[in-house]
């Protein structure tokens, strides 16, 4: 019954409404280029692939402008993140070992 129901499209009551969650980012109110979130997002984008000399120089000129305000914060937090990942791995190993001990006993 579950899989049978899953095949059907949702009713218009569900799909034709303004307050839907915009999971895919295609909503009308999302193209605000002035927000900091958007600036940092632009940096994540890979630089366009260019082959001509002229195009490449334009690309290099454009890069410094794209430096996000959050870049120094991200650089300093990467060390903290490594420690947190290490701590997380240790915790997971401890839990799994205790789980393994319990299943064997």
């Amino acid at each position: 019954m579950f899989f049978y129901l899953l095949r059907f499209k949702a009713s218009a009551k569900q799909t034709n409404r303004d307050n839907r969650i915009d999971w895919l980012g295609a909503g009308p109110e999302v193209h605000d280029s002035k927000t900091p979130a958007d600036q940092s997002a632009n940096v994540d984008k890979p630089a366009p692939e260019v082959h001509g000399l002229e195009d490449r120089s334009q690309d290099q000129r454009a890069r410094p402008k794209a430096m996000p305000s959050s870049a120094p914060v991200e650089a300093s937090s990467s060390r903290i993140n490594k420690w947190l990942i290490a701590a997380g791995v240790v915790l997971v190993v401890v839990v799994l070992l205790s789980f393994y001990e319990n299943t064997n006993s």
Partner: protein
Amino acid sequence: MSRHAALDRFGRSGNPLIRSDAFDSTATLGAEKMTLQGAVNKTSMLLAMTVLTAGLSWNIQSPSMGLISTLGIAAALIAAIATFGFYFFFVGWIVKPRPHLAPKTAPIYALGMGFAVGLISRTFEAQFPGIVLEAVSLTFFVAASMLLAYKTGIIKPDRNFMLMLFAATMGVVLTYLANLIYMLVTGNVFFVLTDNGWMGIGFSLLVVAIAALNLVLDFDIIEQGAERGAPKYIEWFGAMALVMTLIWLYIEILRLLAKLRSR
């Protein structure tokens, strides 16, 4: 046109669940698009994989099986973190969500979690015979009811719904994490998690309700992805999210039934 629209929107909201480029894509021209049927097929495949390894860990009881199960569960956890990311309070995303990995990580997750499901089910079945069948039936009845409520538009998820549900889910996760630390330090567990009185049953009912409502978000991801022509890998991503919630719901229902039976 910004391709990071989801990040823009949810970045301002402060919601860490979606504050990334997790869902940032619609299929590019010529690329294969997601379909509802594809997501349904992938969900069935993942559930079949879960049942397969659950059956193995249920039936075969040996030290080597214990080791395989442990490795499987570890692989499932890594697969889940690699796909959905790992967010830490005040730090941000330690591991960024990578939904494009879902075609590879979803089968690993399903197979790995199957071992955990099998072991947990076997333990409960030994104590309360017949409980697993009841829990499986109840899980699919609850899932079908939520699906019906979603498809007909009785439950309409919006941003407030998502934020409230996220807060509630994080509350449950933090309770379980605190319990884990408490258990490692003292050897005991929180009273509310094992109590078969009204408090323990009430807590279990609340967690079951939160897990069931999470299904609505999974349905919405799948529905919207198919509707807007998301890339093919979102089929795997949606299916993986759905299977993850179904497994959580099943385990919570199992715990609730065990509490009710032990009274």
